[in-house]
């Protein structure tokens, strides 16, 4: 238990650092804004209660908001992603369900399961995030394009980070 707490705290700090020091500095265009910190919510154990996921999402979003000066924005989007997580998990559950004690990852249920899991949640999160950021419907299709392209980069980076860090 204590080991788990330490492990997830470490993961949280690493993801926060990657997000704030690297990802937020990709000042390339509005179409490339990866938000990899949601990997923290994605990697929480299967059997963790939904309310705890919500609280973790809230805390994660708030920390990101405070460190990037956008109070409320990431919080709202991450809580939304955390809320949808149990449904997404149910939607893509393997035939014989999840085994207790398993952790979400490429190794547990295969690459296809993992990639659809990340893609769905990333899209939901980015959708909420980018539309809340613009906060108007003038730029509907442009924002949609930004959601899709940024989600692509987020998924790419998440797979890389997952491969590099999470194993340890």
């Amino acid at each position, binding site marked *: 238990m204590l080991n788990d707490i330490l492990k997830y705290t470490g993961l949280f700090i690493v993801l926060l650092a990657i997000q704030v020091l690297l990802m937020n500095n990709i*000042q390339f265009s509005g179409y490339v804004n990866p938000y990899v910190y949601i990997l923290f919510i994605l990697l929480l154990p299967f059997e963790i209660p939904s309310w705890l996921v*919500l609280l973790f999402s*809230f805390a994660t979003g708030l920390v990101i908001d405070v*460190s990037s000066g956008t109070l409320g924005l990431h919080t709202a989007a991450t*809580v939304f992603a955390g809320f949808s997580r149990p449904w997404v998990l149910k939607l893509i559950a393997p035939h014989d369900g999840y085994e207790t004690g398993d952790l979400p990852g490429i190794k547990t249920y295969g690459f296809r399961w993992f990639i659809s899991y990340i893609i769905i949640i990333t899209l939901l999160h980015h959708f909420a995030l980018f539309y809340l950021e613009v906060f108007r419907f003038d730029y509907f299709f442009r924002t949609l394009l930004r959601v899709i392209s940024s989600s692509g980069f987020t998924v790419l980076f998440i797979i890389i980070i997952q491969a590099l860090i999470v194993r340890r």
Partner: protein
Amino acid sequence: MISLLNFLKKYGNVLLFLLLEAIAIYLLTVKPDYHKIQITRIVNASASVLQERLNLASDYFVLNEINQQLRKENTELKNRLERVYNTESLQTFEATDSIYRQKYVYVQARVVNNSVNKQKNYITLDKGKLEGISEDMAVIGPDGIVGLVVEAGKNYSVAMSALNLDFRLSARLSKNNYFGSLKWEGVDVNTMVLNEIPHHVSVEQGDTVETTGYSAYFPEGVMVGTVKAFNEGGGDFYDIDVELSTGFEKLNNVYVVINLEKNDQIEVEQKINTEQRR
């Protein structure tokens, strides 16, 4: 009691979700005020220190570029000076009296934080109230417009970047002085859109666009950019894409423009407005 517990068991998560979303949306919609920036600043202090160190380090890598920029600016200023003295000697009635009626004061500032990848980008400057900076002052760079100060702290201030969906500026074509409204559409870091120029005005690719100085914030004739493309949008006006002269990704040295006559101008304009309302 049991039914209440059952209800909570069934819908507790939804309720918690709604509660947390409500808090987030509340945080999102309250106007970012000075205290909030301060709080963010304090919590963020370690990150800022790190950021400044990084800036300091990366400054060295662009020293050459900055030097070149400053040299160019110096030459331009010297040329302008030359022009001023020439007008003075040739046509005395057009003399620019630079001592008794100074209109603008420029304060040099350094960009310590900047973004271009959001829809509402802001720039943090390392000068604040102590240097005379306050809200609604224009920020310009060596190459052209940069933004408008929206919050001023003691030692730091935050400016709304021109790359912000809420930014509006009146700008004109420098060759014929037709003016329109300039805004950013949130896509290209190098392009803003100039509206409200009527169809009968001749526009060509490469035309210079500059500020009008109709607002009390921006001085007249600050470079905005050049016309990249234009099309006859709906109605009677062109949609003109303006290629910005300022490179927002590598902002470093900027000037905050203090307009000494701003209050005067606003006061007079307000007087007219209230008189008309009567």
